């Protein structure tokens, strides 16, 4: 019990990014702050899309009549219009909302399912555990994009409304992610199960459920924030890839960057660059932001990486040992 309480504040203070920012030095801090700024901008854009976007995502006309088709950037349409007559800027802005929703749903679902399965599997062991491990390994080996495509067809028949599209994209991504959480949590659970404080909790008569959720789970989730950042970027990529291959959300239901890129394949050959470049840049920016934060957090939080740096600096001939030491 007491060890759990003692660990708890450490676990909580690890979550806020403030600690990492303080811990970081030099250009690593620059990377972290840049990443955070991009993510902040992304989330704000997504929340305030209705206010920021000049037009609706499926709007084709305003009081001056229909929008021009494939109009180059400038004038009333800052980033131009698509061949279908949508405003590119508006669709890029609204697209952030779709992306954020899918990230949230996919990551939440996969954490819940993955953590629960990993916990139960690692805690109870036995044949159930073995079967789950083999299945998780198999799913992990499956090319993730193919799995997502097949899943999205199973769930929604390939194309769908906003809610259906969001859910099918999210669940398809979830299925790909569950094994990752499962593996990590299971490994930690197996390790924790042998710890003295778990034994003593059992001895004083705590139920399995109480031991699992109070004692084991809280100590098994250290690495989850790192996987979470990695998965967030992968979720965007998968969503965009699904949209790009034509298994995404219809343009009248929501704006989705991958779908817009799919429509722009033909445009590019005709020299219409703005329908491809802007949604693409949006994807790159968000993935970049999340990756920068994830990389920095990984470097800062992983004690193995820290010792590795120390070991390296002893052999370094670059004379920057002091800076590295400071880094630690």
């Amino acid at each position, binding site marked *: 019990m007491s060890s759990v309480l003692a660990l708890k504040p450490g676990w909580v203070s690890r979550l806020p990014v403030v600690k990492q920012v303080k811990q970081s030095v030099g250009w690593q801090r620059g990377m972290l702050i840049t990443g955070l700024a991009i993510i902040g901008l992304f989330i704000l854009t997504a929340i305030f899309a209705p206010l920021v976007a000049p037009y609706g995502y499926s709007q084709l006309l305003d009081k001056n009549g229909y929008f021009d088709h494939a109009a180059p950037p400038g004038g009333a349409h800052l980033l131009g219009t698509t061949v279908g007559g949508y405003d590119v800027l508006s669709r890029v802005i609204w697209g952030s909302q779709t992306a954020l929703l899918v990230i949230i749903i996919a990551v939440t679902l996969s954490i819940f399912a993955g953590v629960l399965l990993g916990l139960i599997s690692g805690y109870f062991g036995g044949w159930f555990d073995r079967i789950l491990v083999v299945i998780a390994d198999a799913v992990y080996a*499956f090319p993730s994009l193919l799995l997502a495509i097949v899943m999205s067809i199973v769930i929604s028949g390939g194309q769908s409304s906003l809610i259906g599209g969001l859910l099918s994209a999210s669940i398809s991504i979830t299925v790909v992610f569950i094994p990752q959480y499962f593996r990590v949590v299971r490994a930690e659970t197996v390790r924790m199960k042998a710890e003295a404080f778990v034994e003593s909790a059992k001895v004083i008569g705590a139920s399995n459920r109480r031991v699992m959720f109070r004692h084991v789970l809280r100590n098994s989730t250290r690495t989850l924030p790192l996987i979470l950042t990695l998965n967030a970027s992968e979720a965007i990529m998968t969503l965009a890839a699904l949209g790009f291959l034509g298994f995404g959300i219809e343009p009248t239901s929501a704006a989705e960057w991958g779908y817009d890129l799919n429509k722009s394949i033909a445009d590019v050959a005709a020299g219409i660059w703005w329908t491809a470049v802007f949604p*693409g840049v949006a994807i790159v920016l968000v993935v970049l932001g999340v990756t920068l934060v994830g990389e920095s957090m990984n470097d800062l939080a992983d004690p193995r990486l820290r010792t590795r740096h120390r070991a390296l600096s002893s052999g370094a001939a670059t004379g920057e040992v002091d800076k590295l030491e400071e880094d630690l």
Partner: protein
Amino acid sequence: MMTTTSISETPAETGEPDQKARATRSGGGFARYVAVRLVLIIPTVFILVSMVFILMRLIGDPITAALGGKLPPDQLQERIHAAGYDRPIIVQYLEYLGQVLTGNFGSTISTNKPVSEVILTYGAATLELVVYSLVVAFIVGVPLGMLAAYLRDKWPDAVLRVTAILFYATPIFFAGLLLKLIFAVWLNILPVNGRASIGASIELGNVSSPTNIYLIDAFRTGNSEVIGDVLLHAVLPGIALGLLTAGIFLRLIRLNVIGTLGQDYVDAARSRGVKELRLVRKHAYKPALVPIITVIGLQIALLLGGAVLTETVFEWRGLGYALVEFLKARDFVAVQGIVTLLAVIVAVTNFVVDIVAAIIDPRVRY
């Protein structure tokens, strides 16, 4: 010797602790290691194959999925019966397992060709693309990774690391579209899409028993124009698919070269007055290459997924392109065959990579 291998980022994952213990106790012979790995791959492949079957059947029977609404119900029933989709699902499943074992996946519904033939034709194109992308990844990733390690913590290193992250953050299809826009449309120096221009395709069609790997076929025509044409068509798709892997290679080589630079034998060489650049090129480089082999294995799944996207951008008629076409036609017999094959390729590649890694670095064997 390879005993100086450095930090490998890929912990060996067997998942079965008791198996490890047993192997260690018996001294961990190589044959035993191969046998254990081989036994472990069977359930993986079996589950993958079963998963594909179950998922595809959740959609319904393939005939209704492909032709439902296009044919009157009685004709539909007739075709379902003729194809055997009205039998119990367990019978169909066992038949499917048999098909997988014999490599015969039935015939496509939309084009009525044997799926195995489709796979052979398109698979060659995908193989060619994946090889090109690996070449790009090596040419770009390995030297830049060495450079980053050599100039560690100086500004070129920082620039290279950010470049690697950018490579990773750019979706393959967006990279492809950008490359196409810049080099094929604006500069107009490379072809927009396809695997060869019409003239070259005709000449390639005249090759007797074509491999469908265009570069090999082009060399067999002996026509230098055809060879050039095929190579020009390969540049943009190869780069689009290769850059992601190049970024991963860059980071890995950098990390490993830095690791080996700290080894005793490198220190010894350094104290003898060997120049730093030579240290990187001659001493630290080779051991750092070993983990690349493991990573290629892990990359195969990613590369095959990426190939689907690249082929769609460049109309490269490979397995991915075919897969998307069949998905759009709702031809799930073909989809099932292609997805099964790709899953098996990934599982087998991982097995081969494990074995190769064990040959190179005996420590992997436990």
